[in-house]
């Protein structure tokens, strides 16, 4: 296990230059795009006022000084303050919006994997039959779906025509649970608030289905391909010859082996999940990081955008590290 520890430390150290590069690119691109003061004040503000605010935000200094200052602060884990309105610390704003994104991500991720794996196994067992062709088509269509459009369709059907489900927000303000973790479903359970729980779940359904279906296509295809491969392998034939029940063969032997590439994809998909979350959140006015980032981009709030991107990138690095560690527990052949 000590070699695993060495591996983890090495991975973390390696991710530092990666984050640095990402950060520098974002820093430059943002400043090329325009400046926050004119976005804030509009086109008709007096020049003296613009100059005053630019000075206050430190935007009057040369670019490299701004850059070095930013890095220095980051080294102390200080993401700075927002450039607009109350100029709140960026980290506070991120932490305020993160639970909403986390809740949606967990829910959509779980939904997509269950749906993808189930349809993939189903398809593999009926290879080249009509159900298999239908599911393969499903895999291609969902992978190329455009989230805002799909979300809109679901909103129309289930929210407007049928009136079954709410189409925006995380909860009815009258029923919002007391905040403990920021995950409304969990908070409702912790405070034993049943109406709040039902309400939070109802709000979660459409965004989850939208994002979940979009993400599930790739798992469907991946599970199908690997299950077909593995179902033809020698050890599955041997398991059949030992008279094991079909369920054991499919789920205990075949799926567990097919799960290794699925796990790899889960790690890779995480970035896509967050990107999808941005679109889903804006479509459903879900007050998470994506919604927040989208809003702040239109204000050119440099520090907040940079901070959010560093936060998301760090998250992605951490997730892929966790996936690598999970491998060790699933596949006894992998040792670091």
């Amino acid at each position: 296990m000590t070699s695993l520890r060495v591996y983890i430390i090495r991975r973390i150290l390696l991710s530092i230059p990666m984050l640095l590069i990402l950060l520098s690119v974002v820093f430059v691109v943002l400043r090329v795009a325009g400046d926050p003061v004119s976005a804030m004040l509009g086109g008709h503000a007096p020049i003296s006022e613009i100059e005053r605010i630019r000075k206050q935000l430190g935007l009057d200094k040369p670019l490299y000084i701004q850059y070095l200052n930013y890095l220095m602060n980051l080294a102390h884990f200080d993401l700075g303050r927002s450039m607009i309105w109350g100029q709140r610390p960026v980290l506070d704003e991120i932490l305020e919006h993160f639970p909403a994104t986390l809740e949606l991500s967990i829910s959509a991720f779980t939904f997509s994997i269950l749906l993808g794996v189930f349809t993939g196994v189903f398809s593999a067992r009926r290879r080249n039959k009509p159900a298999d062709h239908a599911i393969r088509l499903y895999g291609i269509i969902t992978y190329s779906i455009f989230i805002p459009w799909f979300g809109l369709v679901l909103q129309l059907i289930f929210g407007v025509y049928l009136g079954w489900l709410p189409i925006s927000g995380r909860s009815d303000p009258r029923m919002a649970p007391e905040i403990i973790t920021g995950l409304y479903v969990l908070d409702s359970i912790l405070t034993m608030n049943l109406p709040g729980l039902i309400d939070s779940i109802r709000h979660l359904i459409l965004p989850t289905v939208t994002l979940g279906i979009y993400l599930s296509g790739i798992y469907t295809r991946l599970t199908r391909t690997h299950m077909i491969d593995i179902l033809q392998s020698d050890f599955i034939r041997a398991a059949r010859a030992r008279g094991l029940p079909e369920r054991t063969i499919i789920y205990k032997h075949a799926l567990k082996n097919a799960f290794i590439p699925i796990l790899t994809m889960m790690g890779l998909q995480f970035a896509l999940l967050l990107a999808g979350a941005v679109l889903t959140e804006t479509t459903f006015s879900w007050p998470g990081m994506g919604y927040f980032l989208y809003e702040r981009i239109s204000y050119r709030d440099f520090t907040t955008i940079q901070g959010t991107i560093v936060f998301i990138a760090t998250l992605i690095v951490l997730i892929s590290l966790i996936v690598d560690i999970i491998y060790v527990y699933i596949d006894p052949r992998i040792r670091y």
Partner: protein
Amino acid sequence: MISDLLRIEGLRVYYYTRDGVVMAVDNVDLFMKKGETIGLVGESGSGKSTLGRAILRLVPPPGRIISGKIVFDGLNLTELSEEEMRKIRGKRISMVFQDPMTSLDPLMKIGDHIVETIMAHETLTREEAEEKAIKLLEQVGIRSERFMDYPHQFSGGMRQRVGIALALALNPDLVIADEPTSSLDVIVQFQILDLMKELKNLYGMGMILITHDISIIPGIADKVALMYAGQLVEFADAKSFFNEPLHPYGKALLESIPNIQHSDQKLKYIPGNPPDLINPPKGCRFSPRCPYATEKCREEEPPTIMVGHHRLVKCFQY
């Protein structure tokens, strides 16, 4: 007839491929008594493995059993439901596979393979099954500490020992060993064959030993079933077969075994290629490669003839 453990009659197994119908097993009859060992010999593509798998009804698609009977201890296996068949697999008829490197689940501990097999067929507690599994592993020469190890931590020979323990886990009446030693090196091959002989004497089960290597047959098999191009061409007890094979293919095979006492001799081989089983040759399938072939052999399919006591040969010469 009553003492027959297995009786195969008129078995046909075809593969429906895109290029055509492959007649992998074409009208094969075979019978064996309880506790007997049959060496099923033939070159690659002769249908011997398909025959072995057909007995367990595990012919991979696009293959199908087309016709014929497989009567095992009075039960016609071709008529059983899938669930009835599952109960026979592993418990009454088991299989040892060719490649021990790939026939174990890489993510499962060695011991769990055996425990799982036992528990699929018998109502035992996990502890009882584990105890039994440890005994089995020791019997095939694997120390009990290795119970918790994974397949990749074993060598090929050791894995094949696990494969044998798995096949014997439920004390079956028949073991089908499909090229059990072909992927092992020569020394390990002999160790495994010795182990199989020893365990066969201990358990008294019947065995079908499928192999392309005719030289491993003497000393282990009671009978030899020789397959060529999906058909059984000779079926004889091992002694008489090795003394005097009747079918020209058998003769040619025995002559092609290298003899180290006469190392200056040129290695003999059978000229020509195995036939295409989608369009097999007309008449006797061996006729294009047979030194004794006549016009009749090329036109008509020879009948299977009983020679002496229980000896079958499919050739016009007899």
